[in-house]
């Protein structure tokens, strides 16, 4: 450890592993340390099942759960948008070669106590009970407008400059009712609350395009999920970092970051000090440099059946728009199964999560839990959401934000790219990744 590095990365969560990979690829000498004996931190998938039960202080699982090591349970539920930033990062860095994915089978949205499938083709749309016939026509016009809109071509704007007008104005122009707005903003644009309505429309239009571009890639839904769980993602980027010269140390407690004149110059573990020019880390390594800005509740649910009313889908997402249950933020439900190698044969892992709004967070997720049918085992976590108090320019300590309640990785990637820019002063150069990483030719 007693060497000098360009950067020391603390924690092997997804964000830190992506950063470590990008830094190594850019020619930096990187030391990557984790206090745990496993890779992934908060983004790990826990295996075997016994380990998960121990973690939550529950008595050991009985025989019915099958083999413990067939389970890989995520602590933070998320899906990848098929055309989203994480997939782009995976492709450009070659990390996609370490992983295999399945398309999530269906996306559902909650309306007046029951769930409806988000239509993926005209046949499903025709049969959908999400909106009435006239509304479907108005909605179609809106979708056509979104698809045709070119940001740099005013002719496609239909008299509404998306750079200036609000999303509410766009909805109003197409005469969309409140339910349709709800569905569009939360199930397609994937907003967590309604703040977007009074913000500039362009952002929302981009999000709807991302949704439909992602949907167009694999057809069943816009979401992908990796085999063996999300924990494979940080590991893939860690490997990228290692093959570009990054050094890994696990099970290494970190006592402090060493500063000189307010600037980080190293990291101390026991009597060893590793010198460096910069530190990148998650909030848990620097409690004095982050502020709590909220809480997220996540409930892992082990099921021995699919979710009712989802046509026995082996993987699904359900979005409960905030207004439907009189909240300020949406509730998310996700389900993956033994077909993704994350559970023993015949088993399913459901997850209900949301941003905490009250003193009694467990009561807040009740509408989500009620959709799941009988739950065999439940594990609840309420975690604090932290953000760094500064940009890190002076201290050269660059801190990631905690993982938020969103169900996909778009905010994760934005944070990573922003940290990389703050730390190195440039955007990541994707062409720095050697093209000889082996040919991918199927």
């Amino acid at each position, binding site marked *: 450890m007693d060497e000098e590095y360009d950067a020391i990365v603390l924690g092997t969560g997804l964000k830190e592993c992506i950063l470590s990979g990008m830094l190594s690829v850019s020619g930096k000498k990187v030391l990557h340390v984790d206090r745990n*004996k496993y*890779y992934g931190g908060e983004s790990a998938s826990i295996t075997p099942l016994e380990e998960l039960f121990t973690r939550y202080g529950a008595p050991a699982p009985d025989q019915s759960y099958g083999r413990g*090591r067939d389970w890989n349970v995520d602590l933070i539920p998320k899906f990848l948008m*098929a*055309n989203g930033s994480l*997939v782009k990062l*995976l*492709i450009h860095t070659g990390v*996609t*070669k*370490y*992983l*295999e*994915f*399945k398309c999530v089978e269906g996306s559902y949205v909650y309306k007046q106590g029951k769930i409806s499938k988000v*239509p*993926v*083709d*005209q046949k499903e*749309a025709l049969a959908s009970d999400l909106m009435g016939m006239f509304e479907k026509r108005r909605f179609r016009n809106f*979708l056509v407008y979104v*698809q045709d809109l070119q940001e740099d071509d005013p002719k496609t704007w239909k008299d509404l400059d998306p750079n200036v007008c609000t999303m509410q104005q766009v909805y109003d122009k197409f005469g969309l009712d409140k339910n349709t707005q709800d569905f569009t903003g939360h199930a397609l644009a994937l907003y967590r609350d309604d703040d977007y309505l009074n913000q500039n429309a362009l952002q929302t239009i981009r999000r709807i*395009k991302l*949704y*439909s*571009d992602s*949907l*167009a*890639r694999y057809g069943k839904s816009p979401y*992908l999920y990796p*085999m*063996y769980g999300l924990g*494979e993602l940080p*590991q*893939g980027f*860690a*490997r990228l970092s*290692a*093959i*570009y*010269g990054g*050094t*890994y*140390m*696990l099970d290494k407690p970190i006592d402090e970051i060493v500063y000189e004149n307010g600037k980080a110059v190293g990291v101390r573990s026991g009597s060893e000090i590793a010198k460096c020019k910069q530190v990148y880390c998650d909030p848990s390594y620097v409690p004095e440099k982050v502020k709590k800005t909220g809480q997220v509740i996540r409930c892992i649910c082990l099921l021995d059946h699919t979710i009712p009313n989802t046509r026995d889908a*082996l993987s699904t997402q359900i979005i409960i728009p905030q207004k439907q249950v009189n909240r300020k933020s949406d509730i998310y439900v996700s389900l993956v199964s033994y*077909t993704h190698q994350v559970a023993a044969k015949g088993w399913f892992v459901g997850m209900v999560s949301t941003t905490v709004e009250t003193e009694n967070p467990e009561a807040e997720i009740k509408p989500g839990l009620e959709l799941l049918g009988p739950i065999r085992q439940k594990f609840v976590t309420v975690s604090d959401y932290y953000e760094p108090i500064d940009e890190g320019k002076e201290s050269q300590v660059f801190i990631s934000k905690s993982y938020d309640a969103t169900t996909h990785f778009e905010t994760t990637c934005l944070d990573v790219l922003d940290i990389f820019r703050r730390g190195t002063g440039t955007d990541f150069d994707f062409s720095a*990744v*050697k093209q*000889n*990483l*082996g*040919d*991918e030719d*199927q």
Partner: protein
Amino acid sequence: MASIKVPKQKVILCGEFGVGKSSLFRRFTNNTFVTASDRQSTLGLDHFDKEYSVAGRQLRLQLWDTGGMERVASITSSYYKFAEAAVLVFSLDNAASFHVLSQHLLDIVTYAENAKIFLCGNKSDLEGSTPQVTDADMESFCEQCHNLISATFKTSCRSGEGVHEMFEDIAQHLVEANRSRLELQSIHDTESFKVLPPDESTDPPCLC
């Protein structure tokens, strides 16, 4: 897709730091040998494909190197995922590297349950007249593992002896294993896939 796909088989190298895994990888990729543990030359390259033809059947071996992660940390469990074969490498001049193999074996059966496992004693050029690890030691190791080991080899990356024979033999084992499996397994549309850059020719996206 009309073209017949050559089945690709992932083969991983396992074993202690310094036993010659990267050297085997280098022999496999460009048939060279370097004396120093020079990591620069393989920087950024961690797996390599090569086609083998066994009894008229084409097979593509994709060999993976650890990336040196085993030096101070453990290898990620994803290294093992989807492996069809694992080569347990030790150094014939280093008994300790042989005695820790049971730990590596445990990792393989845990994370790459279905992989065929091979045993490889490397650095045979350093074996000398009083070998640190004897053939009898290797045999009794195989017996202790209840025949989990499909075959054993001795190689020298320095002279190149035995290296290509080993990979050819592994290819042969995999073709045989494949044949019986492909006959058993019907093709499901729920197969997982790799994400690839978008096809330029795809239709413009639409919500339908």
